[in-house]
């Protein structure tokens, strides 16, 4: 399989994240997108709005006619990649993967989002498990270079190469690959959240204070080059000295804090429910979506200005990490 812009992509899922992925794939002008949606009317409306907003902000034109909604009964010939987005439930993921497997050819690559379900568990009941990989996006996908490709020992090299090339050449991504079969983004975010939970649960800081600390400290350097490069810029050795004393005092909790479990139990599951860690007035969720969409374009324009390693300017001086 040679990566080419003339691809047939099947997208299965619903809601904002999935709609954003469809728009991201549409940016590659020669792709055909087949959208298998649970709620066609809502998703179609969302996609049209995103495209209109995106074209207005970036000036980039997209051919909406390349996007076709299909029903779950349709067999599509020649699908190159099937992208599957579901909630974080192994049963639902497995069911959806079986459904897709029965509708596409044996060589089609299937990429499914997963935060904590092991790739191995998702591959179990499939006839051709090696072609299923983990594919995690950042929402909204169409303004971000983020793509996490999760593979394991069952993944053929050709599948990985094809996905990497597609991500770079057609989807505007700068992907990284983890071959351990689980998401590292989820691990790193969980580490951050665990400490944030600890500080709130033990009365050291409020939800608002934690968020302010995130926005106004890490928010001012993470978009430049991530964590490790930042430590190098500030002086790596000093960070090691702090780790020596601080690590032993960081949270080791294996359980979720009671205040978080209570929120979920009471259906206070975030903006869409009108309450989560914060309370939201009617219409505030949409305002946040608008604000974040605008912000995503703004931050991406800065991220684009500072490429990793400055490969674009100086091919001869590509930085190498110590672990390579």
């Amino acid at each position: 399989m040679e990566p080419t812009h003339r691809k047939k992509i099947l997208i299965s899922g619903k809601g904002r994240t999935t709609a954003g992925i469809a728009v991201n794939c549409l940016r590659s002008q020669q792709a055909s997108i087949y959208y298998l949606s649970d709620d066609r009317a809502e998703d179609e409306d969302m996609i049209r709005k995103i495209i209109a907003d995106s074209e207005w902000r970036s000036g980039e034109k997209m051919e909406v006619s390349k996007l076709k909604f299909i029903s779950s009964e349709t067999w599509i010939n020649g699908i190159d990649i099937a992208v599957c987005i579901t909630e974080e439930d192994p049963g639902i993921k497995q069911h959806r993967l079986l459904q897709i497997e029965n509708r596409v050819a044996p060589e089609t690559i299937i990429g499914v989002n997963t935060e904590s379900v092991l790739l191995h568990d998702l591959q179990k009941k499939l006839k051709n498990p090696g072609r299923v990989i983990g594919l995690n996006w950042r929402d909204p996908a169409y303004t971000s270079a983020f793509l996490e490709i999760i593979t394991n020992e069952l993944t053929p090299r050709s599948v990985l190469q094809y996905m990497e090339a597609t991500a770079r050449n057609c989807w505007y991504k700068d992907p990284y690959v983890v071959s351990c079969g689980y998401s590292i983004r989820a691990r790193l975010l969980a580490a951050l959240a665990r400490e944030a939970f600890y500080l709130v649960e033990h009365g050291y800081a409020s939800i608002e204070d934690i968020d302010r600390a995130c926005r106004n400290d890490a928010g001012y350097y993470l978009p430049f080059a991530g964590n490790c490069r930042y430590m190098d810029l500030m002086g790596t050795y000093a960070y090691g000295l702090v780790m020596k004393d601080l690590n032993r005092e960081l949270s080791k909790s294996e359980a979720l804090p009671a205040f978080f479990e209570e929120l979920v139990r009471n259906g206070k599951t975030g903006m869409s429910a009108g309450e989560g860690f914060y309370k939201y007035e009617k219409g505030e969720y949409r305002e946040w979506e608008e604000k974040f969409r605008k912000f995503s374009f703004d931050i991406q324009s800065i991220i684009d200005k500072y490429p990793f390693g400055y490969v674009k300017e100086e091919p001869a001086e590509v930085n190498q990490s110590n672990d390579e």
Partner: protein
Amino acid sequence: MSDILRIRNPVIGIVGIGLMGSSITASLLAAGHRVKAIAPLPGEEEPGLDRIIRQLRLCEDFDLLNAPLKEYLGLLTVSNDYYPLGDCGLVVECIVEDIEIKETIFKKIVEFTPANAILASNTSAIPISILQQMIPDPQRFIGIHWAEPAFGTRFLEIICGRETNEQTVDSIFNLAISWGKEPTVLKKDIRGFITNRLMYAVYREILHLVEKNVIGFEDADKCFRYDAGSWMTLMGIFRRMDYDGLDDYNTAFRNIFPHLSNEEGISPQMQKIMDSGAGGIQNGRGFYTYTQREAERWLQSFEAFNKDIFHLAANYPEEIPITSKVTS
């Protein structure tokens, strides 16, 4: 004294005008405060003043000055003696992280400042609850922790010691808002404060995954730059979870927390990096290696980026009401 600038109260004393102290001084001058800068070491006044002027030029670069630089210098005195602290309402100590030296300095500060002035430390290493025992009335002692450069972000951490009173916290919180900061309050002293603890938890996990050979440092950087880095200037971790929906996080965290690293010390990987004398871009050795030219370019790029992100973040402020903080 300037006719152009709007001068703010109180007069603020800064004791110690090294890199951090000079940056804080410039930040306060830019906000319109009269600043009494004290250089405790003999012969440090002149280099200290030079540093403050350099920092003020950077403020100018960030479009933070509304008048010519010399107008702001008119708000500043630099001295070796402590007697100019006599009319200060707030004095911030910014000297080396040495508890005995700090004790000597605070004795002098107490001697020369009004009895109702708030006294503060910019320490990021010594507990405020310990430092506040160095003054006769510890309830007016507090930690104020700026990022570097002090004027370049909205970040400001306010740290309460065991005996810090509410009035002191509220005064500093409201003052910080008037500086254009979005202050965070650490209600009880804890090592690493808020922001360091959050990020060191991430560093610990990165090093653990590198140790297991699951990722390289560049993967970790890509991951957090392109994901967290593309929302964190707008949303903190809790707001982001609200935005995404808590159900999936609930399932994912339940599965993941038992697998997270609980490493108590330095990981072998980090120790190896430290053993190489890792100065980062200062000596070309850190998580990555650098030629001299690469190091220079990274630094220049980071400086340019700082300006870009400063202006972008300014378009997405948080409206924080001026209220009582500790009781909320």
